[in-house]
């Protein structure tokens, strides 16, 4: 017999986790879609966002400042990384891109470990969001409920940026055909830099807003990176709506499976990814030709 209280709580867990995965994945998928670079340092961007935010929080005691500082810092890291290193790899084989981004990820993690040690760091949620909210049909941590709203707003902002601005139009055109965009007289490389910054910022923002839920440590990005890739594959590589859909599917899959048997929740995730790869190789919402 289904325990309804448990079922609804798990639905919520899935929604929160799904939103988080969607946000991180959207950054990854925008970068890949536009630049053709699979950024294996994306998990490290998530981690850096958490640490930068934590440092800002330690000095100011303000959660809002922490979120802004964390996001901007990671956007800056993304831009510098693109300017100094990544752009030299645009015309290199995919393996080289994977290796260099993987290496950068390790460097970031080890630098943080060297600077801050392995003990995990906590950032408390802002005072009004501490505690538990009784929704009538269930009780749920207040900050997790708020997180759902915070991430939804961030995703909406990203959506508006991509679909309602000139920059977004160029980025989307770049995803379809970057050579054409270039020949139209638009400096694709400057756009690439901005895109990398935005993509990294999405991960960094996720890193700091998630810090009150899961306290941060140098390795936090590693675990989330794998799930993020699964989300991108399910949703369709390069597709922003795909990242959101993939994230929600992954979140609910993990949560609802764990209600029956937690040991199988990640297995189910890979089963679904495999099914998608077999029956729809370009992902649920992926563009044709991006397989």
């Amino acid at each position: 017999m289904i325990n309804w209280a448990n079922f609804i709580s798990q639905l919520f867990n899935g929604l929160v986790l799904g939103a988080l995965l969607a946000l991180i994945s959207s950054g990854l998928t925008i970068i890949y879609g536009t630049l053709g670079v699979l950024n294996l340092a994306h998990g490290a961007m998530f981690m850096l966002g958490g640490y930068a935010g934590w440092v800002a929080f330690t000095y100011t005691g303000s959660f809002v400042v922490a979120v802004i500082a964390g996001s901007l810092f990671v956007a800056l890291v993304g831009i510098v990384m693109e300017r100094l290193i990544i752009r030299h790899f645009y015309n290199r084989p995919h393996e080289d891109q994977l290796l260099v981004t993987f290496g950068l990820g390790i460097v970031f993690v080890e630098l943080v470990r060297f600077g801050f040690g392995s003990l995990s760091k906590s950032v408390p949620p802002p005072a009004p969001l501490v505690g538990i909210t009784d929704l009538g049909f269930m009780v749920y941590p207040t900050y997790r409920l708020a997180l759902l709203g915070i991430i939804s707003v961030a995703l909406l902002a990203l959506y508006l940026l991509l679909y309602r601005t000139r920059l977004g139009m160029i980025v989307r055109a770049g995803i379809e055909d970057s050579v054409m965009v270039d020949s139209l007289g638009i400096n694709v490389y400057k756009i690439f830099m901005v895109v990398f910054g935005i993509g990294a910022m999405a991960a960094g923002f996720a890193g700091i807003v998630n810090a009150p839920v899961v306290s941060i440590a140098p390795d936090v990005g590693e675990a989330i990176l794998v799930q993020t890739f699964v989300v991108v594959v399910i949703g369709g590589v390069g597709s922003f709506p795909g990242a959101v859909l993939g994230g929600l599917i992954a979140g609910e899959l993990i949560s609802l499976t764990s209600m029956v048997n937690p040991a199988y929740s990640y297995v189910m995730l890979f089963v679904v990814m495999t099914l998608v790869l077999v029956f729809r190789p370009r992902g649920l919402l992926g563009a044709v030709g991006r397989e």
Partner: protein
Amino acid sequence: MSDSKLQNGEIPGISRRNALQLSAGTLLTTFGGLQWAYAADQPAMGTWPEGSKGDTVYLGAAVPLTGTYAVQGADELKGWELAVEHMNTNHALMKKLAPKVNNGVLGKKVALVFADSGAKPNQALQSQQTFINKNKVVLMTGSTSSAVAVALNKFAQREKILYMPGISGSNDTTGKDCVRYGFRQGFFGEMAANAIGPVLVKNFGKNRKAAFMTPDYTYGHTTTQSVADYLTKEAGWTVVTNQVSPLGTQDFSQYLTNIANSGAEFLVNVNWGRDAVLSSQQAKQFGLLPKMTLVLPYQIPFFAKEAGVEISEGVFAATDFWWTLEDKYPLAKMFVEAFQKKYGYRPEWGAENAYVSFAHWARMVTEAGSFYPPDVIKQWEKGEVIPSLLGDFAYRAEDHQYLHPVVIVRGKAKKDMKNPEDFWEVVEVVDGAKVIQPANAFGCKLGDYT
């Protein structure tokens, strides 16, 4: 005890090979001098004799410096480093634990080589293989994950190189998967269960409902089994749910939601390292704590520091060592002082376990007067009572487990802390011999010497 296998047509105790060795030895003694007889009695095996030919012997540690157990691994590594330094410099504490240490061991300087295991068995095996090839290590150590300990146990037996796991809480390490070449200094799940069980029953009574959280590998499963068995059989407790999660889980919301709806009064968290910190912090977020009473049957070094005193306050845990025991035990005081002087903080039990492991190895080698592994093992198996930081105890010859006491602690409230590291009060020091299971309870078969 004979270490040769009895085969058809052979005299018990003397195999054809032994007979040949014996005659060859006699001949060589006559014509080649004593040195040769020694070599014939002690055939080359593992890294012997290469490993102890130079002026330095190497000890190889595969220790988690990244991942879920990174914090505990780093503390352990410091314990090994300090022990090696003390062996080479005749530190007073090392002389108490291993009196024949003299500027090193048997005339050799001791050096530590280490690599990150990430708490993964494969990575640990690869590191140890490199240490064997490159440094000819005479002792392997490191785990902080019993999955690694069990894998290295088997590897040690195959390679004929001594192994001490360091932190390893699984019953299997010196139980089902025990080996002739492995020796464990620290306590483990079954001992923890038998030590903390009576304290829980005394404080909380009979017929209570508990939810367990278990990491999905040998340590988690065996410890949960032991603790649950004790509470259900001795005091009629009920296990209402057991949530098993993979090592390195970040978000425990799914598991906690299942527990929230289970009707449990106690949250017995068998998770370890960062898994335990995150799951306990999130249990508080979900309102499970303080509604349920948290219990940590196998205590986690730095848990209180990482998770916060508001979570560790009032929590009962079983541990190997806590630094305030220095008030009662002189050797513990020497250790805490030396460690704090070098590293700037008071050691937790990862470092203590590591230090004492190495000291015991040094003692056995110097007492045996040889690095030849079977001689060292036989010295160990004499079962002599030898010192630890908490008094003098013996290794049990049948399963190579040290009968170390189990320390029961309870988390202090912030207002009662006398300094920033005063997280736990010692409730009881339980005699290890009284809480350990019979040597054959988990099916230990040690295997061969050679």
